[in-house]
C-alpha cells in the first residue's frame, strides 16, 4: 500500500545535494571503470561496500547504485569505439556498434548506446516500482521444467536469428556448449575435459573468454595491418581524425532514436524479464534482445552496423539493472553477484530482505527506488560529458591505440580475478576468435550457449532427478507448455521466412 509520508521523507533524503553528489561520483566511477576491458563494475562496488559502515544509508546506496548503473552503461563505450567490450554485458553491442564506428558513425552509436541504456534502465526501474510484487510472485513458479524451456527458447532464438547461415550458428552454439562443459559437473562435481589442468577445474572464466574472442582478433588484425601495410594504417588514423572533426555535426536525431523503437522496446522488456530471474544476467539479456530484434528489424544493416542493433543490446543490458532488485526485494534472493553486493549493503544497514521488507522498511525501500530513478539522468549527464573524450580516443592513430589496448586487455584480464592463467585463456580464446572471424562464424551463439549451458544443464538434470527420469515432466506445467509453444512457433516462423527469402531471388 502506498505510504505518502514515507515517500515524502524519502524524497527529501534523495534530492538533497549530498545524495546527488554521491550518485554522480558513483556514476563517474562506474562509467570509467566499466569502460576498461576486463574490469567489471563488481570491483569498484566491492571496494565501495565497506563505506556502508561509516556513511549514511542514502550516501552509500547512492554511490553503489551510481557505480552499478554507470558501469553497466560504461561497457558499451569501448565496445563501440574499439570493438572490445568493457563489461561482458556489452559484448552484444560490439557487432553493430563497432561496425558503425568503422563507418564513421561512432558518435551516433555512442549516443544511441547511452540513450538506449538510460531508456532500458528507466523502464526497468518503473517496472520494479510498480510491479515488483506481481513479478516477484511469478519468479518462484519457474521450477526446473519452466527454466529448461526458457533457456531452450533463449538458445533457439539466438541460433536461428543470429546468422544468415544456420549451420554456422549451430556450429558456434556447439562450441559454446562445449566450452561450458569444461570444469566441474554442475550436479556431481566430477571433472570434465580439464585434461589434467588444475586451472581448468573451475571452468573457462567468462571475462578472459570475452576479451580473447572480441579484442584479440581485432588487435591481431590492426597490428597486422600496421606491420604489413603501414601506409594504410597511417591513413586510418588521419581518416579517423577527419571523421572526428565532422562528428560534431553528426548527433543522433530524435527521429533516428525513435526509429529504433523496436530495439528499445524488445530490449527493455527482455532485459527486465530476464533480469528479474536469478541467473541469466545482463549478457544473456543483451544477446537475446539483440537477436530477437533482428527478426523484426527492417534495417538491412542489422548486425553489420545498425543503430537499432545497438539500441536493442544496450536497452537489454541496462534493463537488468532495476529488475535485479525484483527477486532481491520480494524474496531476498540475489539473482547475480551485483545483487549479492546490494544485499550485503542492505544487511549491513540492518535491513533483512524478504517478502516483508516493503512493509517493514517502506521509507528505506522508497529511498532505494528514488535513487534508482535519479541515477538515470545523472548517467545520461556523465555519459554526454564523456562521449567526446572517448570519440577522440577512438580517432587516435592506430600505432598508438592498439599497443595500449593490448596492455589494458592483459591488465584487465588479470585484475578480474588475479589468476595468471586467465591471460593464457584470453590468448587461446583470441586464437579461437580469430579462426571464427576468418571462417565467418558468429560469436553471439557461442557466448549465449556458453552462458545458458550451465543453467540449462542444471535445470534439466534437476528436473530429471525430480521426475525420476520422466521427460514428460518438462511439458507438464502451463508455463512450460507456453514457452515450448513460443519456441516452436518462433523456429517455424524463422524457417518459413528463410524459405520465402530463398524463393525471392536476390533477397
Amino acid at each position, binding site marked *: 500500500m502506498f505510504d505518502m509520508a514515507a515517500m515524502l521523507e524519502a524524497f527529501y533524503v534523495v534530492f538533497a545535494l549530498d545524495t546527488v553528489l554521491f550518485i554522480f561520483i558513483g556514476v563517474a566511477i562506474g562509467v570509467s571503470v566499466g569502460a576498461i576491458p576486463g574490469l567489471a563494475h563488481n570491483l569498484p562496488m566491492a571496494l565501495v561496500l565497506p563505506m556502508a559502515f561509516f556513511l549514511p544509508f542514502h550516501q552509500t546506496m547512492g554511490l553503489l547504485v551510481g557505480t552499478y548503473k554507470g558501469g553497466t552503461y560504461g561497457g558499451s563505450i569501448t565496445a563501440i569505439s574499439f570493438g572490445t567490450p568493457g563489461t561482458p554485458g556489452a559484448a552484444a553491442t560490439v557487432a553493430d556498434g563497432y561496425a558503425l564506428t568503422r563507418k564513421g558513425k561512432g558518435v551516433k552509436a555512442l549516443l544511441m548506446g547511452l540513450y538506449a541504456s538510460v531508456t532500458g534502465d528507466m523502464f526497468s526501474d518503473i517496472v520494479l516500482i510498480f510491479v515488483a510484487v506481481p513479478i516477484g510472485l511469478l519468479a518462484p513458479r519457474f521450477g526446473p521444467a519452466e527454466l529448461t524451456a526458457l533457456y531452450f527458447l533463449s538458445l533457439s532464438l539466438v541460433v536461428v536469428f543470429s546468422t544468415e547461415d544456420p549451420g554456422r550458428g549451430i556450429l558456434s552454439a*556447439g562450441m559454446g556448449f562445449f566450452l561450458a562443459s569444461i570444469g566441474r559437473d554442475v550436479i556431481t562435481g566430477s571433472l570434465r575435459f580439464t585434461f589434467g589442468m588444475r586451472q581448468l577445474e573451475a571452468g573457462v572464466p567468462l571475462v578472459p573468454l570475452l576479451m580473447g574472442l572480441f579484442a584479440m582478433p581485432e588487435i591481431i588484425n590492426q597490428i597486422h595491418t600496421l606491420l604489413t601495410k603501414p601506409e594504410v594504417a597511417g591513413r586510418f588514423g588521419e581518416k579517423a581524425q577527419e571523421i572526428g572533426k565532422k562528428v560534431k555535426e553528426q548527433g543522433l536525431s530524435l527521429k533516428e532514436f525513435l526509429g529504433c523503437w523496436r530495439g528499445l522496446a524488445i530490449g527493455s522488456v527482455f532485459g527486465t524479464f530476464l533480469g528479474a530471474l536469478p541467473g541469466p544476467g545482463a549478457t544473456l539479456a543483451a544477446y537475446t534482445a539483440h537477436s530477437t530484434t533482428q527478426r523484426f528489424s527492417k534495417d538491412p544493416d542489422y548486425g553489420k552496423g545498425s543503430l537499432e542493433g545497438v539500441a536493442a543490446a544496450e536497452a537489454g543490458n541496462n534493463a537488468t539493472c532495476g529488475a535485479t532488485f525484483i527477486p532481491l526485494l520480494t524474496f531476498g534472493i540475489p539473482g547475480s553477484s551485483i545483487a549479492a553486493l546490494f544485499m550485503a549493503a542492505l544487511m549491513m544497514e540492518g535491513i533483512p530482505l524478504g517478502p516483508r521488507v516493503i512493509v517493514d522498511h517502506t521509507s528505506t525501500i522508497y529511498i532505494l527506488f528514488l535513487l534508482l530513478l535519479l541515477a538515470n539522468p545523472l548517467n545520461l549527464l556523465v555519459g554526454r560529458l564523456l562521449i567526446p573524450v572517448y570519440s577522440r580516443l577512438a580517432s587516435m592513430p592506430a600505432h598508438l591505440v592498439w599497443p595500449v589496448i593490448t596492455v589494458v586487455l*592483459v591488465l584487465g584480464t588479470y585484475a578480474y580475478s588475479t589468476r595468471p592463467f586467465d591471460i593464457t585463456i584470453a590468448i587461446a580464446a583470441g586464437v579461437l576468435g580469430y579462426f571464427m572471424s576468418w571462417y565467418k562464424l558468429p560469436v553471439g551463439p557461442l557466448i549465449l550457449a556458453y552462458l545458458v549451458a550451465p543453467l540449462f544443464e542444471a535445470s534439466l538434470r534437476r528436473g530429471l532427478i525430480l521426475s525420476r527420469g520422466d521427460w514428460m515432466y518438462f511439458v507438464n506445467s502451463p508455463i512450460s507448455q507456453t514457452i515450448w509453444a513460443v519456441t516452436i512457433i518462433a523456429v517455424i516462423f524463422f524457417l518459413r521466412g528463410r524459405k520465402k527469402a530463398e524463393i525471392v531471388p536476390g533477397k
Partner: protein
Amino acid sequence: MTKRVTLNGMIGLVITFIGLILYIGTYQSPLRPNELIQPRVAIGLMMVGGLWIFITEIRTPSKEYMKLDKDWSLLLSLLGISLVTFLYGQTLLRLGVASSAFLFLVLWWLYIVYRDTQAAGTPSQFWTRFLKHVALAAGLAGGMYLLFVTFLQLYLPGILLF
C-alpha cells in the same frame, strides 16, 4: 554446372569428422551418462553445424571463398602477437604493472618509429619522435600504476620492480 567442394565446405566436413571422433570418444569416458549429456549435445551441435555448412556449400557454393593466406603473414601475426601478449603477461607478473607496461610500449614504439623514419627517409627525426613516445609510455605506465595498484589494489605476487 559442376558441383565442387570449397575450402569453406571442406572445413565444415573436417569439423564434423573431429566431432564424430570426439563423440565416439565419450563412450570411453569414465564419466556417468548423465554427466555426458551436455558434452554430447555440444559435440552433436558441432557435427550438425559442420555438416550443414558442407551440404550448403555443395548445393550453393558461397561467392566469397575462404582464402588461405599465401604469404603466411596473417598466421605469423596471429602467432607473433599471441606470443608477445603472453610474454607481456609474464613480464607483468615478474616486474610489476608500471615497469612491464613501460617496457612493452617502449619496445613496440621503438620498432614502429624506427621503421617509419627509415621508410620516410627521415632518420634524423628518429630520436625526437622516439623520446616523445618514451614520455607517453612513461605517462601511461604511471597512470596504469595509479589505477590498478594504488586505486584498485591489484595483487601481484613477488614482483621485482613496481
